[in-house]
């Protein structure tokens, strides 16, 4: 197993401490931080994403893998910045107003970050105006909205309406998801994209920036 495979392997098994140690060691040995990210961490997270999509692993396994990815990223970030590695693009992500569910949103964020996209995470229960403000401030070209309650899913439409009212709807792509959301619903509210799971969300997000 080479160093990247070894990092990916620890990540897939959710071993945060192992990932940290291996990333540190690789950096000490002069391995490029960008390669550690793309060939180690991202590859591992993609494997988990696919396995989750295919019901081969479940939420706990994905969460510990995400925790391990974060541990690795924390060490890598300063090195990436020093090397001037630029993000592919920026996205604003959150769970809509009235909704406190964030496990799915966090997984989507993690997978999208794995694609080299910077995520501005506004958290849960987010007012449409805050999203508009964040898009204006950051210049993000993608807005990702999560909703887990049948009673809050129309909050995704409120965000689209707020983007229209602010005159910036055509500057961003809006991606929606969450258990009750369907393609038909996404079409109804005028979203640009819907995906069923986090791995597909990351692929779709990357496609916007390529």
């Amino acid at each position: 197993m080479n160093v990247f495979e070894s990092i990916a392997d620890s990540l897939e098994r959710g071993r945060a401490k192992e990932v940290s140690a291996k990333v540190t060691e690789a950096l000490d040995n002069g391995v490029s931080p960008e390669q550690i990210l793309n060939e180690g961490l991202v590859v591992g997270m993609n494997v988990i994403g696919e396995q989750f999509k295919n019901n081969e692993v479940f939420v706990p396994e994905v969460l510990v893998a995400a925790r391990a990815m974060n541990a690795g990223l924390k060490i890598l970030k300063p090195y990436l910045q020093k090397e001037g590695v630029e993000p592919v693009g920026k996205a604003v992500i959150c769970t809509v107003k009235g909704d406190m569910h964030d496990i799915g949103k966090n997984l989507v964020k993690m997978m999208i970050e794995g694609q080299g996209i910077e995520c501005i995470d506004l958290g849960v229960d987010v007012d449409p105006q805050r999203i508009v403000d964040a898009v204006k401030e950051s210049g993000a070209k993608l807005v990702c909205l999560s909703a887990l309650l049948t009673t809050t899913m129309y909050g995704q439409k409120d965000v689209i309406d707020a983007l229209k009212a602010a005159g910036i709807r055509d500057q961003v792509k809006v991606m929606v998801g969450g258990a009750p959301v369907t393609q038909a619903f996404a079409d109804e509210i005028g979203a640009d994209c819907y995906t069923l799971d986090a791995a597909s969300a990351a692929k779709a997000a990357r496609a916007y920036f390529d």
Partner: protein
Amino acid sequence: MNSKERLDAFIAGSAVDRRPNLTIVGSTVCRMNRIDIPTYCKEWRRMEEAAELAAHEYRLDFIQVASDLVREAEGYGTEVAFPADRLPYAAGYALEDITDVSRLHPLKVQDIPRLCDLVLAAQKAAECADIYPMTLAVGPATVAGNIRGVEDLMMDSLDEPEAVEELLDIVTETSLDFLKCLAETGQKYFYVADPVASLLSPRMYLNLILPRQKKIFDRGRELGLTGRLHMCGNTTHVIEYTSQLGAAIVDIDHMVDYGEALEKAAGRCILNGNIDPVADVFSCDAAHTHDTILALGQKYASEKAMFMPGCELPTTTPTENILAIADALAEIG
């Protein structure tokens, strides 16, 4: 046939005039006596009154004695927020670290005020002549999730499985005491809702959750209570096991394929559910709800199976759509 006769007969495998309607109508019942959601969760008399009115109005075959999923966890010290217009939720968790579980000890119903309320509501509902109450015991995974935080509990279940088992055992004790209280107030039915359980892998479900759920259904049987399991989400991978828990009825959500579920359950329980509560009941017209239930019911008419939305209905679901469920069930026969 009244509702009591219908439900008993269907479970016993005897002929019925129509399929029983066990739709979890959730907080839609608030519109019956014009209560707001915090009142529905905090004042058991108003909740019971609303649930009983709703059962008659919507032509349900049970009185839903339930409001939210955080009663038990609140007793264990989780801070619960009661927003004005939506269901309460855990705003601060009782356990900051799973290893602190040794500080907790099993609580009795009498230690948890809102759980006592639920018993009182069940007792009142049992006075209804024609419809049985069915009272909610929140399942072990969900109570534990509301005590520790779901995300952390999920990770703990891999990092510290023994401590998680300890927590699950503690909360299961409360459920067993709850069933005893229900039996003492003359109940015949109860249901266990455990939405968090469907997030685990089949192996973890089998090791951690199933033994505790089984304990609950076993105790129910000893006490003469008939149980129903409501685990929403995609449960396809565990139906083989949930069907063996001893619950007479096992609900299935809309992401499950009914045919596959019937095969996996192999006649060990009655399956119930499978309609999308949003697409096919909330955000459509009554004709669509009616046709969807009817089509599903006709497809599996020869099975000992029931049909309803796979999960709780949103608060503002149109009344005519809820009524369309009963209409379609009557046509299925």
